[in-house]
C-alpha cells in the first residue's frame, strides 16, 4: 500500500493555480524527489500533504489517512523539516528538542534517550546545551533535521533540506538521509533545487512545473529518456567513413560524424563502451581519443522545464522568509 497517495490534488490561490490536478503515489521506504523551479508548487504540495493547507480539489492520503479530513491522524505520523529555520534561537539545542518532544507527546523519559540518539546522529551532542544563537547555519539546519525525527515519523517531508548549506554540511545531511532510510525504512518526500542531490538520494523523481507533474520516473530512466549516453570516438588515420560499421554495433542507437569525431548515442554507456572498443580494435582501427558523456539530471530538468527564468508568484512573506533563512544559515 502506498504511504502517500494523491488524486487530482489541486490548490488555487485566487486566480493562480499553484498545484494543478497532481496524482502520484509514494511507496513505503521510498525516497521520492520533487523537483521544480521556484513557484512550481513544491511547497504548496508539501503544505497540503502535511495538513497546513486544505486542497481546493482532489485529495491526498498519507499513511492511509485523508490529509484534509483526518488531519489529526496524519499529523501524528508525519515529520516536517521545513525550508525555513524554525528552531528557537533563544533556547538551547536540548530545550528545542524537548519542546518538540512535548509537541509530539513523547514521554519525557523516552524523549531524553531519543534526543541523545538523534543529536548524536547529526553530530550535535557537544553543542546540545548551548543556545542556538551560537550555532552556525549548518548546525541549525541539522538541529532542524533532528527535530523532525523525535517522534519516529512514518513519513518525513524535507523541504529543500540543503538550501544554502556548505559542501561539508550538505554531505552530512545526505549521509543522514541515507542512513535514515537504511536503518529505519522511513519514507521520505524531498524537494530540492540541486539535481545532483536528487540524483544521489532519490529512488524516483517527479518534475513539477506550473503546478503540473511533467515527468515522473527513476533518475536513471529520466536520464535515459534523453536518448542515452554519448560516446565520442576519434580514430587515428582512418580516411574511410566508419559510421555504418559503428551503427551496426549492439546498444548503439545513433551515430553522427562531426569532423573527425564520431558521436555515438548508446544505452548504458559504461557497458557499451568496452564492447564497442573491442569490436573496433578487431577491425584494426586505431583509436586516438575516446570519451563517455553521461546525461545529467540538469539536462533532464531543463528539457522538461525550459530555460526561461521564472518570475516567482508567491505569498509576500515567502520571499522574506527565504531571505531570512538564507541569512540565518550563512550566519
Amino acid at each position: 500500500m502506498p504511504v502517500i497517495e494523491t488524486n487530482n490534488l489541486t490548490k488555487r490561490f485566487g486566480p493562480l493555480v499553484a498545484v494543478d490536478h497532481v496524482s502520484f503515489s509514494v511507496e513505503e521506504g521510498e525516497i521520492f524527489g520533487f523537483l521544480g523551479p521556484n513557484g512550481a508548487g513544491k511547497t504548496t504540495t508539501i503544505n497540503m500533504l502535511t495538513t497546513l493547507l486544505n486542497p481546493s480539489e482532489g485529495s491526498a492520503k498519507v499513511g492511509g489517512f485523508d490529509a484534509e479530513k483526518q488531519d489529526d491522524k496524519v499529523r501524528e505520523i508525519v515529520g516536517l523539516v521545513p525550508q525555513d529555520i524554525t528552531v528557537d534561537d533563544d533556547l538551547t539545542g536540548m530545550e528545542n528538542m524537548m519542546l518538540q518532544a512535548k509537541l509530539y507527546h513523547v514521554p519525557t523519559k523516552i524523549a531524553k534517550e531519543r534526543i541523545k540518539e538523534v543529536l548524536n546522529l547529526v553530530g550535535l551532542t557537544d553543542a546540545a546545551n548551548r543556545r542556538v544563537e551560537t550555532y552556525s547555519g549548518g548546525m541549525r539546519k541539522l538541529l532542524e533535521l533532528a527535530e523532525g525525527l523525535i517522534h519516529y515519523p512514518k513519513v518525513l517531508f524535507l523541504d529543500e533540506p540543503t538550501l544554502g548549506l556548505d559542501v561539508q554540511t550538505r554531505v552530512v545531511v545526505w549521509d543522514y538521509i541515507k542512513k535514515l532510510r537504511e536503518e529505519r525504512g522511513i519514507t521520505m518526500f524531498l524537494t530540492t533545487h540541486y539535481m545532483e542531490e536528487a540524483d544521489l538520494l532519490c529512488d524516483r523523481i517527479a518534475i513539477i512545473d506550473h503546478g503540473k507533474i511533467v515527468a515522473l520516473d527513476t533518475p536513471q530512466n529520466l536520464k535515459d529518456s534523453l536518448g542515452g549516453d554519448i560516446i565520442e570516438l576519434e580514430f587515428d588515420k582512418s580516411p574511410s567513413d566508419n559510421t555504418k560499421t559503428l551503427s551496426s554495433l549492439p546498444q548503439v542507437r545513433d551515430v553522427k560524424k562531426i569532423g573527425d569525431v564520431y558521436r555515438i548515442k548508446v544505452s548504458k554507456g559504461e557497458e557499451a563502451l568496452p564492447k564497442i572498443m573491442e569490436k573496433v580494435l578487431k577491425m584494426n582501427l586505431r583509436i586516438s581519443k575516446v570519451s563517455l558523456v553521461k546525461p545529467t539530471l540538469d539536462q533532464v530538468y531543463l528539457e522538461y522545464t525550459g530555460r526561461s527564468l521564472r518570475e516567482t508568484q508567491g505569498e509576500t512573506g515567502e520571499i522574506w522568509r527565504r531571505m531570512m533563512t538564507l541569512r540565518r544559515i550563512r550566519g
Partner: protein
Amino acid sequence: MIEETIALTKREVKKWMKNPFLLFMMLVQPVIWLGLFGKALNLTGFISVPPELQDQFEKMIRQTFSGTTDYFTYMAAGMLSVIVLFTAMFTGMSVVWDRRFGFLNKLLVAPIPRGSIVLAKVSSSVIRSMFQVLLVFGIAFAFGLQVGNAFGILDFFGILVALFLLSLGLSSMFLAITIRIKSHETVIAVANLLNLPLMFASNALFPIKQMPQWLQTIAKFNPISYAADAVRSFILHSSTGFDAAKVAADFQFLIGFALIFSLAGILIARTGLRKG
C-alpha cells in the same frame, strides 16, 4: 491540551527570561514614565495658596485625585495598568514573529490542539505582565509611593487580581486582532492606534472628571479605567476611606471584560489558525 499549553508557555517565558536586555528594557520604560512624568507634576505646587486656604485646597485635590495629593502615587497606580496594556500588545507582535519565521507552521504541523497555541500566547503574556507589575510596584515603592495607612497584604492581592483580569482580557484581544496579520509594520500600526487612546482615554494618568464629556464616555467603557481605579483604591486604602462598593463595581466590570474578551479572543484566534 494542558500539557502542550504548558510546554509552549514555558518556551515563551524562557525566551524573555534568557534575554537580559529585554529584562532591562522592561524596567527602563516604567522607570522613565514614573520618574520623568510622575515626579514632574506636583499637584499642590502649581499655585501658591494662602495658608488659611491650604486645607481647603488639599481637600479639593484629594476629591479629584481619588484621595491623594501626591500625583506620583496617583499615576503609579495607573501605570501598573498601562504596563499590562503594553505587554499585551507584545503578545500580538510575537505571533507575527512566529508566523514570519515559520515557527507557527511547525506548531500547526504538530498533532496538538490549535487552542493550545493560542492559550500559551495568552498565558505567557499574563505571566509576563504579573512579573512586570511586581517589578514596577517595587520600583514605585522605592521612588516614594505613598500607600494608605491601612494598606495590607489583602490589598496587594487585590491589585494582582485586578491586573490579572485586565491582562487576560487585553492579551486575548490583541491576539485575536493580530493572529492573521503577516507583517510587523501592520501590527505596530494597529498597536499604536489602540494603545494611545486606551491609555489616555482612561483615568490611568489623569482623573476622568477633568475630561470633556465625550472623552469621559469613552473612558467609562475602557477597562483600563476600572483596573486603574481598583488598583488605586487598594493602594490608597486608609482607615478613613475605602469605597468597597466602588471597588466591587470595578471588579464586576473587570470580570465581565476578562471573561467575554478572553473567550471571544481565544475563539477568534483559534479560527485564525484554520487551514487556508
